[in-house]
């Protein structure tokens, strides 16, 4: 029992450290890829190819003045960024990150909590993550913040429906909510990937994943062109950094979910071992999010709602119906 507790604590710390470091590295990658697509250079001055820009940004974030506006509700204002970061990492706890491997003679299973309802838990925890932006917007005495949190509520609630319904069809195929069962179902090569059986569900999940992680065609919560920075208007320094870490952790989680549920997970791919295969897949989804950001403009809130309720949700329901009839 105590061995189990120690192992879980170590896994949690390792996941926390790696993913927060990746979130910092992600900002550099994002700026470099955006610059590449838009034919600019991006960060170049700090270190070779601007690689030390991460350190410069980190120092700037940590040393900025910690500022709470006088009209704000201080306690909730302080808690809100923690909610975003914490729920993002808790969601990651139920995701099997890599295949089993051996270290010093011990079999390590790289999943912090192996729940038999893993998929549902991840979706639920990402749904609870909406309290971060929501409370942040309401706690600060700022109209942009209120608009940001109103948009949080409608966007996250609406797209949670599409995420759930689009994942229901693969769940019906596999007959389990455990992400490890999903992975094992797709063992044996590219032909067994669920994406060939459920192409529509895959596209719907990706679109709603963009909305749930607040990425660019759907980043209406903090759309700079319209509402300053939305829910994050009054935040600066490390509190704002927490929102950012949460957002990047959620992007990575969506990448893992898409690879595990639709693209074969951590099964070995041709000559590529499983661990590298899943890292490549998640990197591809991360790149895809940046690619879409540079290629598409923001959409209006009414277009967002139209897309969700009049296009995506009916398609998801029809997809479930067809899956039910065929399978």
């Amino acid at each position: 029992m105590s061995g189990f507790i120690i192992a879980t604590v170590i896994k949690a710390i390792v996941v926390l450290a790696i993913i927060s470091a990746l979130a910092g590295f992600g900002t550099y990658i994002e700026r470099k890829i955006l610059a590449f697509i838009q034919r600019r250079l991006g960060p170049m001055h700090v270190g070779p190819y601007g690689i030390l820009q991460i350190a410069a940004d980190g120092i700037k974030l940590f040393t900025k003045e910690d500022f709470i506006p006088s009209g704000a509700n201080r306690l909730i204002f302080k808690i809100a960024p923690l909610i975003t970061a914490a729920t993002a990492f808790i969601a990651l706890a139920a995701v099997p990150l890599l295949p089993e491997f051996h270290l010093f003679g011990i079999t390590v299973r790289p999943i912090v909590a192996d729940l038999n309802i893993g998929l549902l838990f991840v979706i639920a925890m990402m749904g609870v993550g909406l309290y971060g932006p929501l409370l942040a917007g309401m706690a600060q005495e700022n109209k942009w913040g209120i608009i940001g949190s109103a948009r949080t509520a409608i966007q996250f609630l609406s797209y949670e429906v599409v995420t759930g319904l689009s994942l229901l069809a693969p769940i019906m195929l596999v007959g389990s909510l455990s992400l490890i069962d999903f992975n094992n179902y797709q063992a044996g090569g590219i032909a067994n990937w669920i994406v060939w059986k459920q192409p529509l569900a895959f596209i719907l999940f990706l679109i709603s994943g963009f909305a749930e992680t607040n990425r660019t065609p759907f980043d209406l919560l903090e759309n700079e062109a319209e509402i300053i920075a939305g829910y994050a208007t009054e935040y600066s320094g490390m509190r704002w950094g927490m929102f950012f870490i949460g957002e990047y952790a959620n992007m990575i989680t969506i990448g893992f979910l898409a690879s595990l549920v639709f693209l074969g997970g951590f099964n070995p791919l041709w000559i590529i071992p499983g661990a590298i295969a899943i890292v490549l897949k998640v990197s591809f989804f991360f790149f895809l999010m940046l690619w879409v950001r540079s290629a598409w403009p923001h959409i209006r809130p009414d277009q967002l709602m139209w897309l969700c309720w009049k296009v995506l949700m009916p398609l998801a329901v029809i997809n479930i119906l067809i899956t039910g009839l065929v399978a």
Partner: protein
Amino acid sequence: MEAIAFYTFSILITGLFLVTVFSRNILYAMSSLAAGMVLISGLFFIMRADFLGAVQLVVYSGAIMALYAFGMMFFDATRDVKEKNSSASSVFLLSGISAVILVAIFAAPAIGEHIKPLVTAAKGLDNTQAIGEILFTKYLIPFEVAAVMLLVAMVAGIVLASKKMDQSLSEIYQDADPENELKEQK
């Protein structure tokens, strides 16, 4: 181990819901209610009812509380509410009586005869499958009736909300009384 977890969760849940009841600040009340809802799912997880725990997270914390919050956005959430209490004693008495009755309703079966499961889950099924099987065999009719009720509520909601939905609000006001509009402009 489970006892420690249970008491931790119960103390936290009770404390948070007390904050909800006694706080004069909408934001505190709302946040503590949401946090309590999240922690209730912990009780389900302790009892190995993983599916119900996740459903509690999705439905109560994810959806219902977020809609409350959406309603609260029309008020200034950072200010304290001034409560209008015409008679404190009658409020105290009524709420006390209803609290005692509620506790009695839920405690009575536990004290009178120990709760026995009406249906024993088939062995070899995990939590989710067991719930599905009971819902679609023994409790099929109540389940379907609940689904139809939700459908009725949804249709009613759409009918109530959809009046003049394809017109923009500013156009409606302009069409309704152009004289008022003119007066305001003057």
